[in-house]
């Protein structure tokens, strides 16, 4: 689906055709869920947060002006929804010390699918902000500017988070490199 087609679906939703929203959900649900899971770390809660984010996006679709990519706008909603849920639960994101305590195990010989899961788990074990930045940058191909818009972090801060996350993953995934 191209961006123009996407705009057609957005216009249809604005005109009251709610069924057009299913195309948007199908296109973005995996990445939205990945972001939520990296932040909340509980699959069921992450799915609820993703669902809540899509409903918020649907309700606020008239406010999307098209200045940024739709995905950037949507993932901003996902990120803020997850932050709000974490604040309500008073769940603190994993800090560096806790992360370092989890860094003791090195991967055994893994097959391709297992390797992907192992890397995904290693990313999930990063502090929440670093996990999100790495996920958006590598798994979704977002630029530093886009990540800055989604997370509200300054561009230099995004670069710092990326650098720190890379260093930790290099150590964690040394057995695969």
């Amino acid at each position, binding site marked *: 689906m191209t961006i123009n087609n996407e705009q057609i679906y957005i216009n249809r939703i604005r005109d009251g055709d*709610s069924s057009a929203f299913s195309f948007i959900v199908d296109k973005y649900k995996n*990445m939205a869920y990945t972001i939520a*899971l990296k932040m909340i770390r509980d699959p069921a809660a992450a799915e609820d947060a993703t669902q809540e984010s899509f409903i918020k996006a*649907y309700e606020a679709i008239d406010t999307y002006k098209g200045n940024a990519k739709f995905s950037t706008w949507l993932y901003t909603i996902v990120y803020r929804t997850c932050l709000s849920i974490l604040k309500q639960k008073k769940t603190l994101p994993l800090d560096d010390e806790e992360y370092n305590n989890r860094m003791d195990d090195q991967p055994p010989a893994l097959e391709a699918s297992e390797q992907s899961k192992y890397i*995904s788990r290693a990313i999930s074990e990063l502090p929440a902000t670093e996990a999100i930045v790495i996920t958006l940058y590598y798994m979704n191909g977002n630029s530093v500017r886009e990540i800055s818009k989604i997370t509200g972090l300054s561009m230099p801060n995004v670069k710092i988070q990326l650098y720190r996350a890379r260093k930790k*993953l290099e150590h964690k995934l040394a057995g695969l490199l």
Partner: protein
Amino acid sequence: MKLDKLLKTVEQDQPSADFTRKVMNALPQRKKTQPLISKKTGWTIAAGIAACIGLLLITNTPSTTHQSWMSQIFALLHSDYFLVIPIVLAVSLILCLDYSLQILRNRFS
């Protein structure tokens, strides 16, 4: 860099298979409020008003051609036709209010 390549191979997580259905079922109803005056009627009214103004100007012009432009304006202000202006303004205001209220209702409903 090998780490970069490795990170790009990671697959996205997937929500449950019926995730889309669950979201679609949970969507609130979007009420699209229609304006009281349709677009077509609005344009017809606007065209009527424009025609009236045009007619007024044409019918007033010949009797005041020998006067200065200032005198022409004063002559128009003192004519009965000038009474039409508040009516034109009122109709325009109603049209604007109707569309503004429609936009606000759609945004906050």
